[in-house]
Structures are given as structure tokens and as C-alpha cells.
């Protein structure tokens, strides 16, 4: 199996209103999930419904517009810690409801990001109302005891060891993000800095919960075998009964200044089996970009590093080039400007310098000479095809809308995405490279092998 590096371009979801023509893709005819609709409850909670009647199953998700970037000073990791504690219980359901979900044959999970926290179940459609009852209950009535909190903190610390401390690439990643996102909360890892996570308390978790877990800060997304009317009735009976608990402050955060300096991060570790290099810039996200700008960056990421027909792959990996693998990615769905990254693994005997020079040459070529119409068309078609194939999965569909709405976009923004991608010109892509990928700014990260001190390993 080839191991493509997972890239996080937003694959939007579409239904082909017309067959995709070979010669000239007509993006304007493609609308994303035209059967998706949205409304708001009286208490301000947003609801998105995406019917898909192929199987008698629903995906029920609640997205909170809050994540690690909204934590208070010294409390990194509390958003993710609270996500774990949300499974503990409420006054009405002291042991949580995982056992019920399991008993009904459902699957559940949750995830925390910088900008959002989401909880979901996938379950037979007849249990949707029950899931809403539970989820609404824990939105308002979480009850935590000290012993549970202490044990869960141990679990989170083990999770941190598993994800970060045993993984040199993740260790570098933390320094890389901290150096790139200067003066922005994106500098801190989602799972938290070790000392701060270790010191988290029940009070810290409850305080964060009381600040952000409230219906007007939440988005309900239901995809699957339902109608809008069914969802509306159930949502009004459950979430609609909740009072808003908080006076929400706008998500105003300190911003990374436009630093015209190139910063370098090095991490050497005897555990590194394979050196690698990463390069990053802070670029506008869909929420902060000028019209058309984020779409152009999406296409740029595809042209530069979107698979084996991309510029970087062609110039660095094929024909004995300096890299064995390469990728570009764009964190496009974020409240604040976020990362455009390039990642490369040097071939044996190739220095970081040589690898860097090659990456810079590829970027310079796009910035100075632009791209061909053929490349442009291929990149667009590829982005759109991702979306066409994504519509096979109700879960992916629910995530696409939840992610967009939690990071400042609207349902319409998502639905009209293909037309906006279609409008990107070769010039726009060239301009994006010139504007957003300056070679004398951003961060370079090196992961290298350290010679182990004299002991057996």
C-alpha cells in the first residue's frame, strides 16, 4: 500500500448535477449537498440536516465553537481534557451514556481541535431522539467527582505519551507550531504542554465548560436517514429546552504578526529512524481570507504537493530526485490564519540543504513563472473529485459541514465551494505563491538522528 501523507485540504461534498465532462469541467454546475439545509433553534443553536436514505442509520454530531485556542493562560490541554470528562456523567445519568450507546449498537467518539470540539454517535435512526436527550443533558448538566477527574488525567497523560513523547516527529511538531504561530494560541499543542496538563483540575475543566458549553455556541449536524421535519421536532424537544448559560464573548484572539524572518527549529533524537524536513507559513484561512484567496491557496496546495502528478513530487521525488516522499498541506478551515506546510523526507545521502534548495526552486518557479492551464484544470478536477467521492459517506459529509460552520463559514459557503474553486485562475495561483510563501519567512523544521549516548538501545 502506498502511504500517502494525509493532507488536510477541505474536501467538500458535492452531487454532480451534470456529468463531469472530460475537456472542460463545469464547476459552476456542481453544488455541494444541495439537499442539506439549516435552521436555528430559538436559543441560538444552529442545526444542519443532510438526508441520505441509503441505510437506516444516522450520524448525530454536536460541534462546539470552542477548542484548544480558546483556553485560558496556563491551562493548555483543558479543552481536550474536558472532552474526555464529558463521557463521565451528569446528575440524571451518573455513569454517562456510553453503555446505552453500546447497548443500542451505536458507535461514538469525540475529538478536539484548536477551534472546535465535537461529539458524535452513529446509530440506527430510531435512536436519534434518545441521543439528542443525552447530548443535551451533558451540554448543561455535567457532574464530575474528584476521583474520576484524577484518573482521567492519568489517561490523558498516557495519551500524550503515546501521541507525542514516544514520537520524535510529534515532538518536533510541537516546537514547529510554537515557533510558527507566534503570539497566537495555535502555538500551543491541543493536548497541552506537559506541566500544564499535569496541573489541570476539576475546577479548570468546569470553568471552561461553563464558559463555552451552551446551545448558542453549538451546532447540531444530523446526516443520514432523516427528514428536516423529524430533526426539527426532536431538536426542539431536547436542545431547544436548554437555556443559554453564558454571555459569549467574540472569539477575538491575538494574531501572529507578519514576521519577515525565517526561523529554524531543529530536533535531534537517537530514536529518529528517518530524517525529515518541514516548512511552514501562516496563511489566511477560509474565515479570514479575501474572496477567492483561500480557494487559490487550496489549488496551490494541490498543484504543489497534491499527489504524484504535483510539482514537488515531479521535481523532488521522480527520477532519483533528492526526496523519497513529499507533500503539501493547507489548514484551510480555521478561525484565524493557519498553516500552509510542505513536508519532505530526504533520500539517503541527501543533505537538508540540498532538499531545501529543491523545495525553494519549485516554489520560486510557480511564483515567478506561474502554472499551465492544464495543471490548473487537473488540480481543480482533483479537488472536485475528492468531493465527489466523499459524498459516499454520511460521516464525512457531517464532518465537512460541522467543520465549516464551527470555523466561521456558512452552509452556503460550503454549497458554493466548487463554483468558487472553478473560478480560480492560473494567475490567482501564481499570486498566492508570491504572496503567501515567501522564502525568507516562516519556519523550517529539521528532524534528525542523534548519535545515541553510549548505551544499548
Amino acid at each position, binding site marked *: *500500500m502506498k*502511504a500517502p*501523507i*494525509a493532507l*488536510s485540504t477541505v474536501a467538500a461534498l458535492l452531487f454532480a448535477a451534470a*456529468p463531469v465532462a*472530460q475537456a472542460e469541467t463545469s464547476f459552476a454546475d456542481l453544488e455541494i449537498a444541495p439537499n442539506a439545509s439549516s435552521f436555528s433553534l430559538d436559543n441560538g443553536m444552529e442545526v444542519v440536516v443532510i438526508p441520505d436514505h*441509503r*441505510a437506516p*442509520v444516522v*450520524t448525530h454530531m454536536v460541534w462546539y465553537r470552542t477548542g484548544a485556542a480558546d483556553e485560558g493562560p496556563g491551562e493548555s490541554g483543558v479543552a481536550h481534557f474536558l472532552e*474526555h470528562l464529558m*463521557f463521565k456523567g451528569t446528575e440524571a445519568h451518573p455513569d454517562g451514556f*456510553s453503555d446505552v450507546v*453500546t*447497548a443500542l*449498537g*451505536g*458507535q461514538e467518539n469525540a*475529538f478536539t*481541535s484548536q477551534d472546535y470540539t465535537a461529539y458524535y454517535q*452513529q*446509530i*440506527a435512526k430510531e435512536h436519534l431522539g434518545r441521543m439528542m436527550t443525552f447530548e443535551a443533558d451533558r451540554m448543561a448538566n455535567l457532574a464530575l467527582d474528584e476521583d474520576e477527574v*484524577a484518573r482521567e488525567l*492519568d489517561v490523558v497523560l*498516557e*495519551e500524550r505519551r*503515546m*501521541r*507525542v*513523547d*514516544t*514520537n*520524535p*516527529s510529534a515532538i518536533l*511538531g*510541537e516546537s*514547529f507550531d510554537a515557533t510558527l504561530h507566534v503570539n497566537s494560541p495555535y502555538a500551543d*499543542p491541543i493536548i497541552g504542554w506537559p506541566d500544564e496538563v499535569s496541573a489541570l483540575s476539576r475546577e479548570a475543566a468546569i470553568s471552561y465548560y461553563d464558559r463555552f458549553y451552551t446551545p448558542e455556541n453549538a451546532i447540531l449536524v444530523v446526516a443520514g436517514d432523516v427528514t428536516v421535519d423529524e430533526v426539527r421536532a426532536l431538536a426542539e424537544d431536547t436542545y431547544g429546552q436548554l437555556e443559554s448559560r453564558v454571555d459569549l464573548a467574540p472569539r477575538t484572539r491575538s494574531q501572529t504578526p507578519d514576521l519577515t524572518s525565517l526561523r529554524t527549529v531543529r530536533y535531534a533524537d537517537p*530514536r529518529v*529512524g*528517518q530524517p525529515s524536513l518541514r516548512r511552514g507559513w501562516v496563511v489566511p484561512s477560509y474565515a479570514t481570507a479575501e474572496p477567492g484567496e483561500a480557494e487559490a491557496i487550496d489549488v496551490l496546495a494541490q498543484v504543489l504537493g497534491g499527489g*504524484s*502528478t504535483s510539482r514537488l513530487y515531479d521535481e523532488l521525488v*521522480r*527520477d532519483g530526485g533528492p526526496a*523519497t*516522499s513529499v507533500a503539501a498541506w493547507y489548514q484551510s478551515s480555521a478561525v484565524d490564519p493557519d498553516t500552509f*506546510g510542505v513536508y519532505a523526507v530526504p533520500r*539517503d545521502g541527501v543533505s537538508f540543504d540540498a532538499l531545501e534548495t529543491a523545495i525553494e526552486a519549485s516554489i520560486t518557479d510557480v511564483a515567478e513563472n506561474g502554472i499551465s492551464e492544464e495543471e490548473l484544470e*487537473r488540480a481543480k*478536477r482533483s479537488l472536485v473529485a475528492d468531493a*465527489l*467521492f466523499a459524498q*459516499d*459517506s454520511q*460521516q464525512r459529509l457531517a464532518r465537512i459541514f460541522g467543520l465549516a460552520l464551527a470555523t466561521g463559514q456558512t452552509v452556503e459557503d460550503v454549497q458554493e465551494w466548487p463554483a468558487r474553486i472553478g473560478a480560480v485562475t492560473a494567475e490567482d495561483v501564481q499570486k498566492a505563491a508570491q504572496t503567501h510563501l515567501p522564502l525568507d519567512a516562516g519556519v523550517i523544521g529539521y528532524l534528525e538522528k542523534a548519535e545515541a549516548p553510549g*548505551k544499548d*538501545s
Partner: protein
Amino acid sequence: MLSGFSDRIRSCLLATGFTLAASLGAASSSAALTIEPVTSPGGITAWLVEDDTVPVVVMKFAFEGAGAVQDPEDKPGVANLLSTLLDEGAGPYDSEAFQTELQDRSVRLSFDSSRDSFYGDLEMLADDPGQGIELLRLALTEPHFDAEPIERMRAQIISGIRRDQRDPSAVASDVWSRTAYPDHPYGRPSEGTEESVAAIEKSDLEAFKTAGFARDNLHVVVVGAIDAETLKPLLDDAFGDLPETADLKPVADVMPVTGQTVTETMDVPQTAVRFGGPGLARSDPEFIPAFVMNHILGGGTFSSRLFEEIREKRGLAYSVYTYLAPLDHTAIFGGGTATRADRVDETVRIIREEIARMAEEGPTEEELSEAKAYLTGAYPLRFDSSNGIASQLLSIQMEDLGMNYVDERNGLIEAVTIEDVRQAAERVLGGDAPTIVTVGPSGA
């Protein structure tokens, strides 16, 4: 994988040294799933589920028995390298041209190999599936194996092997396989070693393909916006040029070695644990009771006994799981976790105690009814997409469970009695101690 930009997801990652077998395939009888057997003029058979909801066609296929077990004894990694090269130049197209064709025609084509078999996955838009089929035909019958892509993929795989050598979980899985199957292909790493991958030549790839890809070990499932009449000639186009019969080396059936304890030192802040012993064959009449038992013990939900004891009660680990892996020539009951070095002994002791307790007592009536409710209720969730349906049906076809299995499966689970589970638990867990591997810091 780059870390640091993916969501932190609260879940058990089931990464073991073995591909986790599709547990117990299948869809809800409540979903209207109509499987249509299709035979092409040239005699290629496939299972078709026609569904026009989404304008996409998914084809999944496999060459049974043509997995890593067929690698030359001195060169593990051939099947894996082959799976990266079929789309790197074929017929009139060199590597880059082939990849360009795939992109321009909006076709997704990928290959994968497991220990036992070789798999293909084709996704295409419904308006012209013939284009994807033509590229698949070329990949299967006229791959180039040009020097440049071979070197490129070789370098990429070796780079991954080096990374895994420093990953305690990956090392623990490899060591477990090596210890459990010392004189068998199952003991060798599927992706090979740095040395073996370096030694693979074009002739190895050609020989593997020639011996392994044939019509008599082919399984095909198609799901999506296509009807039988359209599909029939396409099956001949894709697979008709393959040889009639595969020429596979016999592989011995084998039992995993039990009772070994292996400790490897690695300077990491957390110890990875992998354990495993004999399981049950998929065709064993007690497999389903054992499957229910495994679910109760450590089957990957937040309600299993091990999750409760290790994570919820004591905070010892983020992830703990067990699994049943019925492979073609062996069967495993195994599991894993990862914990702070100074808590490994306690964690392993609890796992052993829980295994012993399940072997002696079996589950409670309440646990059994909860497990049945979950397993039967979770059934339709696997069928929420064309990809999901195709994966399930392919494994049902390969396990020879029959086209009606989809409708029968929940009844089989429902019929399991507590006595059945007790017997299965005693049989699977009550024998020799599993072989346990720990990889982590010394002197904890």
C-alpha cells in the same frame, strides 16, 4: 503521517502486526441490500449491489492467497512493493502518464497486500466507468516495473521501515510475530526488512504477479451506480486477460508459539505491550461465540472489561484492546496496550487476571445480552456507504460465508447462549499463556 495537525480522537486505534480481519462482516437485514450475482460472457463472476444515490461506482477485488505468505523466503516485502508499483506505468503509459490519466479521468485506483491476499480498490464516476476499467486492466496485465519507479517506491518503503524500527508499537508487533511464528512466513515482516527490500528485483515482482494474479483466485464486488448489463463486459475487460489458474506455493498451517515473554529495551517514555496466542478459525463452529466473548473482554468499545479495568478504574492506559484474527493458515487471539514503564507489570497482571477470569467464569447474562444488543445493533452501521458495503461483501465472499450471510448474521449472534460463550472462552483463553512482548525503557 505528519503529526500535529490531525484531530485528537478519543478512540482505540486497532493497529496490530496483523491486519485485523473483518470481524463478522455484514449488514442489517433491515437495510434493503440486494446482492446480484453477475457472470460475464468470459466467465468472471462478481457480486453487484446497484445503488444510484451517489454517481460513483466502487469496485473492490482480491487475489486470494497471493499475499505476503507468497514472498520468496529470503526476500520478504515483494507483495508489499508490488502493491505500490502496479499504477506506476502500464501499457502505453509511463509512470507519470499513468498517474495523469488517473487524475484526468477522476479515477481512484489503489492496491494493497495483507499477509494472506492481494487487494485492489477502484473508484470511478458513474458516467464512464469504462475508463477506470481500462486503466485497471493495464495495471493488472501490462505493468512496466520500470527501474525508476521501482527505486522510488523502494526508497519510500525503506524510509517507512526505518521509522517503524523506532516506533515501540510497531516493534512490539514485529517481535510478537517473529516469536509466535519462528519458522513460518507469518513470522516475517510483511513490508520486509531494509536488506530484503533492497534486494528485490524486477524479476521477483513479475514472478509474484504471474503466479498470484489469476481468475481462479479472484474475488470481485461492485457497488454503486451501475447495472449488471453494463458491468458484464467490463469484468471481461478488466480481468479477462489474466491466466486461468494461480500457481501458489503451499503454506503450512501453524499454531502460534505460546508462553514466551520477550522484553526489548527502547529509550521511550512509554512501554508498548502486545500479547497473543491461538484463536479460532473463521469456519470453526465456535468462532461466533468466541467473537461475542472477545467483544465483552476487550473488543474495542468503551464498555469492555479491559477498558473498564485498565482505563476507567485505574487510568493505566489510553488504549487497550483484544481481537480475534482468523488468518488463512493460523488463528490468533491477541491484544495490546501502552502504559508508563513503571506501571507495565500492574497492567500486564490485570490483563492476565481478566483473561483468566473470563476463561473460568465466562460472561454474566447481563454482559451477554448487552453484547448481543451492541453487535446486532451496530450491524447496519457498516453498510452506510458503497465503500462499506463493498468491504463487507468482499470479506464475506472470501470467507466463503455465502451470499445470504448478510441476512443470517444477526440470527447467529442472537442464538449464542451463555454456555456457548463459556465454552468458547475456556477453549480460547484457558489454554497456554499467551506470548507477551513489551518494548520500552529498561530499569522501570
